[in-house]
C-alpha cells in the first residue's frame, strides 16, 4: 500500500488526526521560539551545512581518522556494509560474551537494520529504553517519528497498552502515572541488562569520541551498568573536530523540540574502566547517496525531525503511512535510494511547499530533492505508463497554441454540458470533496481578442 492509501486511512480518525497535527505544530512553534532566541540562527545553519558538506567531500579520511583515535582510546571499531552485517556483528558480540539481555537507547539506525527481530529470533531479549520507543515496541510497531516515536498514539491508547503489557491498572491515562509505571518497568530491565546499545549523534574524528543526546538519560543508564557498550552509527555521523560539535548541538535540540539543549549530552571517549566499547559503523546504502551527485546533501541530516514537524503532509498522515522507517520529507528523500520501486509514492507525498527546506538546520534542500526523485522515478519508468502518457499528451497539446485553444474550448464546453457525474469521473478524484471552477464561455485570450483587451 502506498502513501496516499495509508494517509487516507489515517485521516479517517478525524479526532486523532487533528490531535496529531496540532501536537506537532506545537513542537514546530517551540522550535521557532527557540531559534528566534539565537542571534544569527541563519548563519549557524550555514556553518553547519558547510561543515557537513566538507566532511562528505572527504568522508573516508574522516572515518579512518575517527577509527584511529577511537581505537587509541580503547574502543573497537567494526565496519558493516549493510544492515545484515551490522546485525551479525552485534549478535556476535553478544553471543561471544553470553549476553542474553540487551537494553537499547534510541537508534533509528537499528530500526533501519531490523536489529530487534534479528536478535529476538536468536533468543536475546531486547528492551528499548527510550520511553516513546518502548511504547511502540510493546505495541509491536515501529516509531512513527524519529524523535517522538509514539506521537501517533493518544494517552488513552498508551494506558490501554500498558495495562495489557506491563500490568498497570485499567483506565490509567494520567501522563505522569503512565511515565512512572514505565520508569519502574524500565528500571528492572536496565538493572538486569548484560549489554547496552546506543545510537550515535556525533562521532568526532579528531578525538575518537562519541556523543549521544537524550532527554531521559537512558543512554547513560544503559551503558553505565552492563560491561559491554555497543554504539551503532551510520557513516554520515562523523564530524571533523571537537569544536564543530557546538555548532550542531546548538541547532539539534532547538530544531527537534525547541529545547536549548537536550537534557543529557553524553560523551563517550573510550570504554569506561573495566568495560568494553564496540563501535559499529554502517554504510547501508549511504555511499550510494554520497556518489549520487544530486542527493549527497541528504547525508547532512542530523535527524532532528524538524522537517517532519513542519511538514503539513506528515502531520496529517502520520509516520506509519510512509513506507520507510524514517518518515517525513527526509525519509522520502532517503528511502528511494534503498528501493525505488517499493518507495515510489514517497517523493510524491509532498505538496513541495518548501517548509522543510527552510526549517532544516543543516539546510538540506529537501523539497528540491523530492522533485529530483520524481524525475528519477519517471525516467526509470517506475511510474505507471498511464501517468507518464497523460503528461506527454498534455505537453504535446500545450506545445501547439492552436491545439491548446481548441482543447481548452472543448473541455470547458464538456464541463458545462455533460452530466456532473461524468465530469467528476474524469477528474481523478478532484471532485470527490471539491467542486470544479465554473468554466466561462470564453477564455481570457478569446475575450481579449474579441474586445481588443477592453471587455
Amino acid at each position, binding site marked *: 500500500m502506498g502513501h496516499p492509501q495509508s494517509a487516507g486511512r489515517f485521516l479517517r480518525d478525524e479526532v486523532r488526526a487533528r490531535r496529531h497535527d496540532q501536537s506537532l505544530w506545537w513542537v514546530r512553534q517551540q522550535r521557532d521560539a527557540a531559534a528566534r532566541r539565537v542571534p544569527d540562527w541563519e548563519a549557524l545553519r550555514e556553518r553547519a551545512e558547510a561543515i557537513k558538506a566538507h566532511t562528505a567531500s572527504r568522508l573516508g579520511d574522516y572515518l579512518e581518522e575517527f577509527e584511529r583515535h577511537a581505537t587509541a582510546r580503547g574502543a573497537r571499531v567494526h565496519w558493516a556494509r549493510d544492515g545484515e552485517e551490522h546485525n551479525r556483528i552485534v549478535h556476535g558480540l553478544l553471543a561471544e560474551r553470553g549476553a542474553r539481555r540487551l537494553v537499547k537507547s534510541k537508534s533509528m539506525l537499528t530500526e533501519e537494520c531490523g536489529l530487534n527481530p534479528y536478535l529476538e529470533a536468536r533468543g536475546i531479549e531486547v528492551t528499548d529504553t527510550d520511553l516513546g520507543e518502548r511504547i511502540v515496541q510493546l505495541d509491536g510497531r515501529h516509531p512513527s517519528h524519529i524523535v517522538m516515536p509514539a506521537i501517533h498514539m493518544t494517552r488513552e491508547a498508551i494506558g490501554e497498552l500498558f495495562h495489557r503489557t506491563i500490568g498497570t491498572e485499567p483506565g490509567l491515562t494520567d501522563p505522569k502515572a503512565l511515565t512512572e509505571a514505565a520508569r519502574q518497568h524500565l528500571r528492572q530491565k536496565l538493572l538486569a541488562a548484560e549489554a547496552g546499545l546506543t545510537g550515535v549523534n556525533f562521532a568526532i574524528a579528531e578525538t575518537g569520541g562519541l556523543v549521544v543526546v537524550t532527554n531521559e538519560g537512558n543512554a547513560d543508564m544503559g551503558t553505565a551498568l552492563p560491561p559491554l557498550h555497543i554504539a551503532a552509527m551510520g557513516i554520515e555521523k562523523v564530524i571533523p573536530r571537537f569544536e564543530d560539535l557546538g555548532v550542531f548541538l546548538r541547532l539539534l535540540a532547538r530544531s527537534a523540540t525547541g529545547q536549548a539543549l537536550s537534557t543529557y549530552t553524553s560523551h563517550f571517549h573510550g570504554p569506561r574502566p573495566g568495560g568494553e566499547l564496540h563501535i559499529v559503523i554502517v554504510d547501508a546504502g549511504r555511499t550510494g547517496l554520497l556518489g549520487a551527485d544530486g542527493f549527497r546533501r541528504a547525508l547532512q541530516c542530523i535527524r532532528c525531525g524538524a522537517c517532519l514537524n513542519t511538514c503539513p503532509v506528515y502531520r496529517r498522515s502520520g509516520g506509519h503511512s510512509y513506507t520507510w522507517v524514517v518518515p517525513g520529507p527526509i525519509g522520502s528523500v532517503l528511502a528511494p535510494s534503498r528501493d525505488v520501486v517499493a518507495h515510489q509514492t514517497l517523493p*510524491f507525498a509532498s505538496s*513541495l511547499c518548501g517548509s522543510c527546506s*527552510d526549517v532544516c538546520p543543516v539546510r538540506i534542500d529537501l523539497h528540491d530533492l523530492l522533485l529530483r526523485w520524481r524525475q528519477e522515478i519517471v525516467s526509470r519508468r517506475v511510474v505507471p505508463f498511464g501517468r507518464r502518457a497523460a503528461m506527454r499528451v*498534455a505537453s504535446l497539446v500545450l506545445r501547439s497554441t492552436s491545439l491548446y485553444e481548441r482543447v481548452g474550448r472543448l473541455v470547458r464546453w464538456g464541463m458545462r454540458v455533460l452530466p456532473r457525474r461524468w465530469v467528476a469521473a474524469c477528474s481523478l478524484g478532484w471532485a470527490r470533496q471539491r467542486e470544479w471552477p465554473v468554466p466561462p464561455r470564453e477564455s481570457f485570450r478569446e475575450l481579449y481578442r474579441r474586445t481588443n483587451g477592453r471587455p
Partner: protein
Amino acid sequence: MLTVALFVPCYVDQFYPQVAFAALRVLERHGVRVEFPEQQTCCGQPMANSGCASDAAALAEKFLRVFGGYDHVVAPSGSCVAMVRRHYAALVGDRPGVDHLATRTYELCEFLHDVLRVTRVDGRFPHRVGLHRSCHGHRELRLASGSERMVEPFDKVKTLLGSIDGITVVEPSRPDECCGFGGTFAVAEEAVSCAMGRDRILDHERAGAEVITGVDMSCLMHMEGLLRRAGASLRVMHVAEVMAEAGA
C-alpha cells in the same frame, strides 16, 4: 513607458479570465504598457512537478521563444514565475536567454513592489481579507520572510494589500501553512490535500476573513472548490482582483 509581457497561466486563461483582466488593469493603472503575446500556453510546471522533465523542457523552450525578447514578463502567479526563475535553468539552461528570462520574470505583486516601487495601491476595499501565502511565491520567490527563517520580517504582498483604504488584513494562526493544492498532489494525495485545504479555510474563518486572497489562483481554486462544496459564505479572490476592484 515601460512595456511588460503578460503571462497568463493556462488554467487562469481557461477558468479565470477575470483574474487575468484584473492583472492587466492593475498594471495599466500603474502606468505600464501591457502586451499579451498570443502564442503563450503553459510554463510546464505540471509536467516538471510530476517528474516529466523532457515534457516540461519542451514547454520551457516554447516559453523562452514567446517571452525571451521582453525585458519584463509579469504573471499573476507565484508558482509559474518560480518555475521560470528557479527551475528553467535545470531544464533548458543551455539555451541563450534563459538567464535573462529567469531574472526578468516577475510575480505581479513582486513587480509592483520591486520594479515599480509601488508603496501604496490606490482605491478602497472595505473588507476583512485573509492573505493565503502560496508556497512557491512565498518560499521560492521570497515574497515574504517566511515563518521558518530567522530574518528581518518583510511581506511584499501584505504591504501592498495593507495600503488599500478600508482593508483589514487578518492573520490566520498559522501564517504560511500550505493549503494542499500542490498541482498533481491535489489528486495524487486527494485525502491529505483536502484535509489541508479545510484546515487552511478554517484558520482564515477563525481570523474573521470575509475573503481569502493570494497570488496564486490554483491554491484559491482548490479552496474555492472545498468552500463551494461546503456551501460556505467565505469567498476567494485573486490579489489582482482585490486591487482592481479597490481601484474601480
